[in-house]
């Protein structure tokens, strides 16, 4: 057996997991089906500066724009302006993902692109390897441990039978636009049932006159394109610009899974629904998820025990470090999707901008509960947050 661990998927989760495993002295191979890592981009590309505490300083060439804060718009057009204490980054995922991969390779990981993993090798109730196609040839690779970090759109992931259905997704569309008028120091987020039911419209600056302009919505009568085109048409500063690229996808916004391990295999990152349920941001969650997975796998390999029971420490650790917090954020999302546009407008008057940012991280929710309690019609929603 050539490798201790085989990882499927070379995104933020797979590379973070691989890097840490390799640093711990294990032999690691990542397979990715893409020809070029980081492409196609299915992401708003926003990341908090503090994530660098987890992965080290991100080189300048990975960063399209540094952000001071966020403007959150209520349906009536009033906005809350929050300065982000540690700042934010709008990345260039085309470059960033390659840098992440390079970090894993420097630590000793092998990466093989252009490779489609089609099936798993199972023996005696354990996952023991993968089957795939590379350069038109079928191959098999055995390993002590398999990590599924494929993202949500993998068909392979569904053959694992670990999953309940992915019921909670937001349908997303994003335009890379140029020639627009924006304040490049701030990301802009627009809320409202007419603007984006359950979700929001985002404008993430990528330079002086460029931005990722996107929308995420609950799937319904109208598609994401309808809402995004409508929004751009109603905003002159965007309407005057040009659409350079169309990107899209579906993002898990909940369905946090209790159990993501089995004998010889675990799932991490977006494949395991490790995404922030209110804003759909997945990079930071993927990095944390991949690193925690590596910690647990390292211990299990040292003890020569990759049974479901031994690996279930990953379930416990992830829920302790992230899950409980994200479950609170999911409750917040459930409350937010029931708010009327008038409620949004009223809350924008009642809340402090910095607190709203904290809500999206699952903190300070008692402040929101109190604000909801003051409105007789919203008391039941307030109780949902308790």
């Amino acid at each position, binding site marked *: 057996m050539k490798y201790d661990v085989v990882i499927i998927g070379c995104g933020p989760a797979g590379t973070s997991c691989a890097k840490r495993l390799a640093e711990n002295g294990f032999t690691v191979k990542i397979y990715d089906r893409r020809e070029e890592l980081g492409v*196609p981009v*299915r992401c708003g590309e926003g990341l908090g500066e503090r994530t660098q505490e987890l992965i080290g300083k991100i080189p300048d060439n990975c960063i399209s724009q540094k952000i001071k804060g966020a403007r959150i718009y209520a349906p009536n057009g009033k906005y809350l302006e929050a300065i982000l204490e540690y700042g934010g980054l709008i990345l260039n995922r085309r470059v960033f993902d390659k840098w992440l991969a390079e970090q894993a390779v420097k630590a000793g990981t092998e990466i093989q692109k252009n490779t*489609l993993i089609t099936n798993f090798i199972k023996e005696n109730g354990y996952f023991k390897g993968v089957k795939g196609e590379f350069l038109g040839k079928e191959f098999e690779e055995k390993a002590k441990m398999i990590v599924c970090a494929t*993202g*949500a*759109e*993998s*068909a392979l992931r*569904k*053959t694992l039978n670990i999953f309940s*259905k*992915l019921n909670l*997704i937001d*349908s*997303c*569309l994003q335009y890379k636009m140029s020639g627009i008028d924006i304040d490049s120091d701030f990301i802009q987020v627009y809320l409202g049932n007419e603007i984006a039911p359950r979700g929001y419209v985002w404008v993430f600056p990528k330079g002086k006159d460029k931005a990722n302009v996107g929308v995420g919505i609950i*799937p*319904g009568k109208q*598609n*994401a*394109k309808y809402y995004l085109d409508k929004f751009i048409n109603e905003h002159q500063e965007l309407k005057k610009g040009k659409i350079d690229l*169309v*990107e*899209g*996808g*579906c993002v*898990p916004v909940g369905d946090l899974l209790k159990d993501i391990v089995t004998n010889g295999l675990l799932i991490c990152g977006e494949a395991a629904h490790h995404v922030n349920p209110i804003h759909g941001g997945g990079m930071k969650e993927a990095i944390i998820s991949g690193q925690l997975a590596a910690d647990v796998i390292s211990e299990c390999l040292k003890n020569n025990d990759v049974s479901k029971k031994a690996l279930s420490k990953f379930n416990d650790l992830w829920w302790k470090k992230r899950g409980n917090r994200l479950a609170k954020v999911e409750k917040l999302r459930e409350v937010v999707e029931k708010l009327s546009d008038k409620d949004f407008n009223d809350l924008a008057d009642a809340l402090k901008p910095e607190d709203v940012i904290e809500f999206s991280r699952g903190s300070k929710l008692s402040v929101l509960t109190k604000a909801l309690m003051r409105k007789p019609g919203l008391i039941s929603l307030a109780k949902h947050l308790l």
Partner: protein
Amino acid sequence: MAWSIDSKKCITCGGCVSVCPSAALELKENILFDEKLCTLCGICEKACPVSAIKVEK
């Protein structure tokens, strides 16, 4: 009963693949469809950000 995709509208984002509960869809250069696995549940039609998919029951 039929599943169809309008390749002129499709942006191959893979959103439909993410939501398909029966692994009937796969993302390669285009969206690949496996009739044998499809249950015509219609989730992909709803989730598609550009309404490229039609499911007729």
